[in-house]
């Protein structure tokens, strides 16, 4: 049974990353610098939410306690969420949002692509990954295009983008914490090198620097086991309040 619990947790981690990312992106509505970007961010939010729904639904089924996607999204409390801290941070300015999306989507894309191509992993998870992979490639491309334009744009945009990289970098270590699932899924720890080279390529083109490897050790972690920041509390309050105000209702 514990292998199943581990795999359910694994799915929740991926699913919560997507759900929380969708929620943060949804806050941008009608607020970006151009309408085209409003469209793009809503589009990305919708993709992330779609993947979240597939993952939460599957996790709920495996768990076997009758929880569907909405029960998991709306009725869990902070300590039961499994998203990385990087995802729950506030949006900040557009530079912050884009750099955070770069770091997360590079991770998601690598994980989905590797999973879809792997043999022996859980079939349904592999199918979800195969579907999410193309969308994820688009999220990575979008955030890379903008990271480059901000990093290699004006002095002000460079300063803001560099600030975002510096503040967010310490949160990226958590993405590669090891997870075991009896072979049903890939260990995210194996992604770190490729993630680094993907992200470094973008940062270099953007004329941005990043802290050296090992500069930050485990200072910003805990999300994977439910130890979240106050930011998640605020996010969940907004996400869950209406649903919780009407117990048992359908919408």
């Amino acid at each position, binding site marked *: 049974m514990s292998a199943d619990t581990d795999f359910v947790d694994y799915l929740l981690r991926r699913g919560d990353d997507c759900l929380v990312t969708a929620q943060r992106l949804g806050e941008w509505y009608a607020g970006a610098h151009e309408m085209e970007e409003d469209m793009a961010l809503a589009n990305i939010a919708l993709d992330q*939410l779609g993947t979240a*729904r597939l993952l939460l639904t599957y996790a709920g089924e495996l768990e076997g306690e009758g929880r569907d996607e909405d029960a998991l999204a709306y009725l869990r409390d902070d300590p039961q969420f499994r998203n990385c801290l990087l995802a729950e941070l506030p949006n900040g300015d557009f530079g912050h949002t884009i750099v955070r999306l770069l770091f997360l989507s590079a991770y998601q894309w690598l994980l989905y692509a590797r999973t879809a191509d792997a043999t022996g992993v859980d079939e349904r998870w592999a199918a979800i990954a195969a579907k999410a992979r193309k969308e994820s490639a688009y999220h990575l491309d979008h955030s890379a295009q903008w990271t480059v334009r*901000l990093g290699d744009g004006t002095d002000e*945009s460079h300063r803001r983008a560099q600030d975002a990289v510096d503040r967010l970098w310490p949160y990226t270590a958590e993405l590669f914490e090891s997870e075991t699932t009896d072979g049903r899924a890939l260990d995210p720890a194996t992604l770190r090198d490729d993630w680094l080279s993907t992200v470094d390529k973008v940062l270099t083109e953007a004329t941005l620097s990043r802290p050296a490897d090992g500069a930050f050790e485990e200072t910003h972690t805990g999300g994977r086991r439910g130890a979240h920041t106050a930011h998640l509390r605020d996010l969940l309050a*907004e996400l869950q309040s*209406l649903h919780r105000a009407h117990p048992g209702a359908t919408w």
Partner: protein
Amino acid sequence: MHRDEGIGGLLGEVEAAEADLRAAAERRVGTGTAGRTGDGTGGEASEAGEADEAALAAYFEAVVAADQKVEPRDWMPEAYRTSLIRQIAQHAHSEIIGMQPEGNWITRAPSLKRKAILLAKVQDEAGHGLYLYAAAETLGVTRDELVDLLLAGRQKYSSIFNYPTLSWADIGAIGWLVDGAAIVNQVPLCRCSYGPYARAMIRICKEESFHQRQGYEILYGLARGTPAQREMAQDAIDRWWYPSLAMFGPPDAESTHSARSLAWKIKRFSNDELRQRFVDMCVPQAEALGLTLPDPALHWNADRGAHDFTPPDYAELMRVVGGDGPCNRERMAHRRRAHAEGQWVREAAAAHAAKRRDRERVPA
């Protein structure tokens, strides 16, 4: 006017408008009297004088009369052009501002399915605004100019978006009533005489079919839910009904722009005709919901073959149009803030583009 009103009926009209646009394109426009039938060389055109202007005007009238399309480079009366710019821009601004009252419920949507649908809708609205700005630009304005006019308060958007979304049920009411009214307005515009606007409207109407349906579906579920949900739904309808009726503008007798717009086929039906059509559509839909429309005078008039109804308060409409609605300031402030805070991003993109061009010029 059509009696069968449901989304299916309206979508069928969009397809018919598109088919007619293609069929008209196959026909030649008969000019009859005036005008040159030359070989179209530049020499003749560059000698344009008054006689030529009359010929151009006659050709313009013939194109419109034949239900063919005026295209961007055609001669057109200046008032035709300015009317279109005003109308298309107002429509575009409405799509963009309209993202706000709904967008602020995305983070609070009570189920993941509803959250996804709302995200898709708000995304569509951004896209529709962009199609419309693109159509307006073919008439000789830039999008930047139009956005500046909006932010300066010198161009308007539909006043319906100056009302607050107080509960989740408002999202349902907006989909059913506001989008419903918009569709009744928009479907005839698929036959507008100006090509780029007609084509944009066809594209928009096709994409919008699900917007009204999902709003109705929300209310349908609420009406059959808990007592609190049912009350939420009825309250939303009570608040959004009259503002939706006001979306069709002042009564025909008081409408300043209408006569000429109708003659030029920018507008295809009058305000009152469209309002009546909308009411007749909504009554059976409200019955199916099991909720009431807040108008005790609403009843079927067999002589007219239509429903009698209480008109909205036009004085209130004028106040809201004039900037005195509950949320006017909020909507504009949100838009202005987004624009101002985005300045550094736009500058970065332009700077980067310039750097790229410079790099490409340097020989390898």
